[in-house]
């Protein structure tokens, strides 16, 4: 299969969905001739014109709210928020309006809109351009939240999001835009709410999203050399959450590590741990479940500090090693 970048995969999904369904259109800051802050929409204005690739004023509340309003009348807008940090500015429209309209109105409307947004640290953009806020939106009934880690999923999940009749927030990690992977040329979708097992293993289940999936896979390679077999689950969707895949895997391995970039405190790792300990997997646990997440600091500018603020490959390796040392069955084996 041909390989393309994550950014190209997103662009293809947007282009294909606009060709497929004339109700689909894009709104965002600098998404036209500029091509978006990360070049994701570059060239789309040439094919679809400024009516469907709308450069908007610098107004996140209006962008998100207008997407909701247009969606209620049957359009299928895809809004881009230039950095996920700016979701906070549009969050009344997303949280109080778009997420709740259907339920509040007794099921009378649908709000088929998408908000795409680049998230995460690693670019030196500091505290107001580097956050991972997915947990905020996971907390809101009425929203769906996805965070693709691969080009294949970036395209397939975005297509599902556009075809979904509910508001979906898509977190795209900035560090992933240039990563490459196989992506089919024919139409396909990746279902929202279904995790992927990226690597099978028997000793530890590592549950990750987004760029942390890549770091977990790299860690798993290193741990394999030490005889530790790691299963890596890429959640892909945070809401709805594929609890079945998580529970099944932990029943098999008896150990779990959750990794995310968002702050550990009140991050979604807690939700995953809750899912595990409330399920039959509890009986299979050989060790406490471990959470790795961002340190409780705003993302700093200095590159060494920035790196230290979020989990890295070596942190995942260390956590897994530690976990094995704590486990009675492994100690007996060693």
């Amino acid at each position, binding site marked *: 299969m041909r390989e393309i970048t994550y950014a190209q995969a997103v662009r293809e999904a947007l282009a294909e969905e606009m060709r497929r369904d004339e109700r689909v259109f894009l709104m965002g*800051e*600098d998404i*036209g*001739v*500029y*091509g978006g*802050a990360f070049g994701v929409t570059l060239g789309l204005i040439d094919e679809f014109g400024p009516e469907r690739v709308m*450069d908007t*004023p*610098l*107004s996140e*509340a*209006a962008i998100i709210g207008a997407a909701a309003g247009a969606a209620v009348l049957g359009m299928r807008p895809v809004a881009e928020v230039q950095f996920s*940090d*700016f979701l906070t*500015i549009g969050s009344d429209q997303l949280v109080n309006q778009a997420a709740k309209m259907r339920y509040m109105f007794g099921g009378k409307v649908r709000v088929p809109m998408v908000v795409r947004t680049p998230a995460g640290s690693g*670019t*030196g*953009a*500091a*505290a*107001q*351009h580097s956050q991972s806020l997915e947990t905020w939106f996971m907390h809101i009934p009425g929203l769906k939240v996805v965070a693709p880690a691969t080009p294949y999923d970036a395209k397939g999940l975005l297509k599902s999001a556009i075809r979904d009749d509910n508001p979906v927030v898509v977190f795209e990690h900035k560090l992933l835009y240039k990563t490459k992977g196989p992506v089919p040329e024919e139409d396909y979708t990746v279902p929202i709410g279904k995790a992927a097992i990226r690597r099978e293993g028997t000793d530890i289940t590592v549950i990750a999203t987004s760029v942390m999936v890549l770091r977990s896979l790299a860690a798993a390679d290193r741990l394999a050399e030490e005889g530790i077999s790691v299963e890596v689950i890429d959640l892909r969707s945070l809401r709805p959450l594929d609890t079945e895949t998580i529970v099944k895997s932990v029943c098999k391995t008896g150990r779990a590590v959750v990794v995310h970039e968002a702050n550990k405190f009140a991050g979604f790792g807690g939700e995953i741990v809750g899912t595990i300990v409330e399920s039959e997997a509890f009986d299979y646990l050989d060790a406490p479940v471990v959470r790795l997440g961002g*340190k*409780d*600091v*705003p993302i*700093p*500018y*200095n*590159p*060494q*500090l920035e790196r*230290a*603020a979020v989990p890295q490959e070596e942190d995942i390796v260390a956590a897994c090693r530690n976990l094995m040392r704590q486990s009675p069955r492994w100690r007996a084996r060693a």
Partner: protein
Amino acid sequence: MAESMATAARKVDLPPGRLLHMYRQMLRIRKFEEEVDRLYQAGKIWGTFHLYIGQEASAVGAIEALEPGDYITSTHRGHGHSIAKGASIPLMMAELRGKETGYCRGRGGSMHIADVESGNLGANGIVGGGIPIATGAALACKKLGNGRVVMCFFGDGALAQGAFHEAVNFAAVFKLPVVYVCENNQYAMSMPVDRGLGSTDIVIRAAAYGLPGVSVDGNDVLAVYEAAKEAVDRARRGEGPTLIETRTYRWRGHSKSDANRYRTREEIEAWKQRCPIRRFGEYLEGLGLLTAADRERMEREVEAEIQDAIAFAESQPDPDVSQLADGVYA
């Protein structure tokens, strides 16, 4: 000289030393920015920054109208405001290099330089984010009765933010001592003002809040000074806010560099012909306050100052990673 200073005909009440100081300030900003760009190309600065080249008269003219105890809030394009307000260039350079001794201990970088001692309440990564902050600072000045004024800088793009509307109305209602300075450099990233704003008559917005609105040539440092002085005096007298538009142009790409797909080379060149520094230099020469030799000497001095700052920054320590969590709470 098509673009001779409108102010040549005007009587600006500033002593020669002050005029020369303003010229030097503009030069310092220009050279600082040129070196930041060079350091970035050389891989010495990371992350992102937004250059102020071409807009120097706006920061210098406006901030010269303040008293030393007054405050400013700045933007993502904030180096010029910091320097004009009296920041230390070595400490700014150290911050851009991510050093422990930089203005934000290497935690903030270009978009968050703050120097509370010189009255700079901070640059901002959020467009429009500083407008309510400036308003609150003005509220404190009023409550404290300290006679101080806050000057709030933002770009044309920020006019499209809800925060602008809310904060300016708030300040109008409480007659706060704040001066809103909209630096209209013709674009918000790739968005030209005539497509990003319903009306390009920026200061017409002032009327909606019952405020005076003044639009000036933002490349004419004395025109900016005059408008700002009047607004600052008004604020200090307790008569409330003013909205000023400074019409100017950013010569460089939006951040670091960009492909300039959204504008023409001719347009950029035409604005370069209206260089605020050259114009002011020629004006001062015309007044007999500055000779060509003086200008060259001043340029050499500023160049040396910036090089010293770079050397200082280079010698400074990086933050200690074990102190990552230091400073989140008071």
